[in-house]
């Protein structure tokens, strides 16, 4: 493409400090957005794609690196970019019309120009008749239409969308996607480029010209895919599915030899492998579904539809199953291992036993068990363990990891946890009763 470059990022990193330690939210990002492009930032939650969007719009200054807009370094908020927010970010005390008008008012557009323009825009997005309604009277889909109208009212060159459809129900999301594509492909809006953040693979393949695929720990770009399908795209066409399969393949990765897959324990040299945030119950569902498949092998993208989960959740489940040795992943295909099959066939109690032996092999779990074994009475306060983890991770992540560890450990009946006293106890093998109150989710 010969079109002019709108945005260019050079070696952009965002670093958070927590005490003495530094953590990368995003690391060494190089990318550009050209005029006429619809670019997707795609990746699992926590990969820093929203941070990157905020850096590109100037809401946040990167710790390192350079952000150029039309060749000029960006200082402060970029007045030629706007954002459509995931949670709409409408002012609940303003009417639909006022919500859109305020964006123009802040730019000193006088009311005789402002009002007709806003009414026309509301008409075009299909909100005619709702001008004086308050956001709380509208459905989620209509609220997001207000968000779109507000963003488009200021006629931005760069329209940034931060997971705009993920808070909507499936049908509203689908119809809004179609309307946005129509506005864009038919050139009905003066926008020169669109940048959209998403974790939904199908949505990305449906809409984007180019995907920038990111991964987490630390947030970084792992791949770029150009989607050269003409619009409108057919979701069931072989080429469409090929792209979906390819992206799943990139994000799910390839099962590595065990020592690489498991990683190192916290505090040990090497990369620590953190646990994906999944419910054990959902994991069981995934394995049972695979067990019913002839040949125990399936395209990952096929599973998303069948299990009724979004691609982000699915990929986390796949990662967890892979980590525990229940499945292997290669080129976007997932295969149940004999162990996974045994787990799927087993009774509830036997499952717990298999699960327990599998998680005992995870270095991070071994680290926790060692910590507990050395503690007096084989019990430790939650905060103590979390502090120890915080040496390796940002505090919120440390808390999340500990929650997963405890939830998995409880399922495997290796750990007990008392929410009253915040004490984590090492259970004697196959001995003590399971602790009662499950900690949140």
């Amino acid at each position, binding site marked *: 493409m010969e079109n002019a470059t709108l945005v260019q990022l050079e070696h952009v990193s965002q670093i958070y400090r927590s005490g003495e330690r530094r953590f990368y939210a995003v690391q060494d990002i190089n990318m550009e957005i050209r005029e006429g492009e619809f670019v997707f930032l795609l990746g699992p939650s926590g990969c820093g794609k929203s941070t990157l969007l*905020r850096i590109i*719009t100037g*809401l946040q*200054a990167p710790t390192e690196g350079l952000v150029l807009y039309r060749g000029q370094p960006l200082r*402060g*908020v970029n*007045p030629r*970019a*706007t*954002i459509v*927010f*995931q*949670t709409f*970010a409408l*002012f*609940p*005390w*303003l009417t639909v019309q006022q919500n859109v008008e*305020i*964006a123009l*008012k*802040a*730019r*000193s557009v*006088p*009311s005789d120009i402002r009002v007709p323009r806003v009414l026309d825009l509301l008409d075009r997005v299909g909100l005619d008749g709702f001008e004086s309604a*308050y*956001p*709380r*009277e509208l459905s989620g889909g209509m609220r997001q239409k207000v968000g779109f109208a*507000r963003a488009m009212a*200021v006629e931005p060159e760069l329209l940034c969308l931060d997971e705009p459809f993920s808070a909507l129900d499936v049908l509203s999301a689908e119809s809004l996607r179609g309307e946005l594509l129509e506005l864009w492909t038919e050139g009905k809006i003066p926008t020169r480029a669109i940048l959209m953040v998403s974790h939904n693979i199908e949505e990305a393949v449906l809409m984007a010209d180019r995907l920038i695929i990111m991964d987490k720990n630390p947030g970084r770009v792992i791949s770029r895919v150009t989607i050269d399908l003409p619009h409108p795209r057919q979701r069931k066409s072989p080429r469409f599915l090929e792209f979906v399969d390819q992206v799943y393949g990139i994000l799910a990765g390839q099962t590595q030899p065990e020592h690489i897959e498991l990683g190192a324990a916290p505090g040990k040299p090497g990369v620590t492998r953190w646990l994906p945030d999944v419910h054990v119950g959902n994991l069981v569902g995934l394995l049972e579904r695979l067990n019913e498949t002839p040949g125990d092998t399936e395209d990952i993208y096929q599973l998303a539809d069948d299990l009724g989960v979004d691609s982000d959740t699915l990929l986390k489940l796949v990662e967890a199953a892979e980590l525990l040795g229940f499945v292997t992943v290669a080129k976007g295909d997932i295969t149940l291992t004999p162990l996974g099959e045994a787990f799927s066939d087993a009774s509830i109690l036997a499952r717990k036993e298999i699960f327990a032996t599998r998680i005992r092999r995870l270095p991070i779990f071994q680290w926790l068990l060692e910590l507990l074994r050395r503690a007096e009475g084989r019990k430790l306060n939650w905060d103590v363990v979390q502090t120890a983890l915080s040496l390796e991770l940002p505090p919120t992540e440390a808390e999340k990891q500990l929650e997963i560890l405890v939830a998995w450990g409880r399922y495997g009946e290796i750990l007990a946890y008392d929410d009253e006293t915040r004490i984590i106890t090492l259970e004697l093998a196959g001995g003590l009763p399971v602790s009662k109150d499950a900690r949140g989710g």
Partner: protein
Amino acid sequence: MMLKKIYFPKQPFRPLRRGDIVVLLSVIALLYLGIRLALRAPAAVAGPEISLHPRGLPYYALRSLLRMAAAYVLSLSFTLVYGYFAAYHQRARQILLPLLDVLQSVPILSFLPVVLLSLSVILPEGVAAELASIVLIFTSQVWNLTFSWYQSLTTIPEELQEASDTFLFNWWIRLKTLELPFATPGLVWNSMMSWAGGWFFLMAAEIFTVGERDFRLPGLGSYLQEAANQGNLPAILWGVGTLIAVIVLLDQLVWRPLVAWSERFTLEMVERDYPVTSWFYNALRSSLLIEKLSRFSAALGERLDAWMLQRWPFAARVRISEEKGGLNLPLLMIGIVFITGVGFGAFNAARLLMQVSPTQWIQIVLGLVATTLRVLISLVIALAWTIPVGVAIGMNPRLSSWLQPLVQTAASIPATALFPIFVLMLLSLPGGLNSAAILLMLMGTQWYLLFNVIAGASTIPQDLRYTTALLRLSRWERWRTLILPALFPYVITGAITASGGAWNASIVAEYIEFGGRTLRTKGIGDLIAFATARGEYPLLLASTIAMIVIVVLINRLFWRRLYQLAEERYRME
């Protein structure tokens, strides 16, 4: 439904931090300065004649009302500026927040003589007394408003802030579109609380005498005092009736409409089942005149916005984390001057404190113990009756729909107005003023608790109540497993406010001048009031500082922990 949020800065527990010591010393220095001025005040001041004829009442009511309104306007202006700085300037916050925390623990009434006498040195007596009473009422209204505004500013959802940035709102548009609307429900609710607190202290601020100096002001408070002094029962009834009428009118014409109006500023994206309604608000909304007026003001607002936008173009809000450290010279100079001033004041205050005799110090310690006990007992009594009653009201919508307004009216009658009557009745009880003081404290504080318990009980989800019914839990089990845990955060919030009020009330409850007689009972409040009446400034300073320190310590060591526990563990979400 309307829970007053209390703000505690989230910081590790330490009884006193370095900032606090600076702040405490500043307060002491300020007190000292006032006392120095007070010592030069004229020796005798004649007060105005208060006529007990009912015909004078509208005039007195108006004077009191104007005094309150002036103090409120002052409070609101102070709040907006102070909270804005505390929220958006990290450096300022480090001083402003602890200062606020200490100031709200200062017994307001012991400030009165200092403010009043020092003003009367500079200004004519009438003006000085008027100003002093306004400042006094201000100090009783302002802190919770400021906390509310500060807390709103710091809890605005990040996405709305980001939207304001992306759409290039300048500070004025941001204030108008985001900050003020977001803070409105809290500000309205706290304004109501502030007015209730204001009435309480208005009564005391109008009837002030120091030794030979009579600083009474014409108003409802002084009318009631005079009526009680003369034992004129019809006049007392007239006065109380007028007060109630004023409060009910305010409630109907100002607060209910405001609450009904402020409903639209809640962030919740669902409609309420039982929105607050107000006949007056509905009438206003359907009025043609108001419609014309609002159209006119909208046109005016448009012009104002345009001017503001031109004057102050967009600038992104400073993110606290990005603010760079480093000292700048002017700030350093101000700091040095400030610290020198504080140091000098504190030093002189210390010299003044040297004049307090050992026996007086012993009295202060004994007084602290006695008053602490009284506060505790009044709290226990209040808990004992408000929890069952509050739960009964809160869990029964039909009962609460007609009891709530009644309770609110009862609560809004300032206890100080009824003091003279109650004292008459209570003194005949065994224990005399010693036990009467507890009841007087109770009268001022129990309502905070009751409101909070009602609010807490009404948030207990219906399905949990069905579950306990299905499980056939015994009454005690039901209370233990559901009701008490659900109430806990609300009770703590109420108790913090109530105990703060009780400490303040001790000054009017433990030392009473009444019909030419002086009634006293041992306590820190008694010492403060006694020192004030006698003009014994060293004792006043010592006992005031003692009370500030103990209240701040109790807040830090006891209430804040309970509050955090409640927030973390028992919040129904």
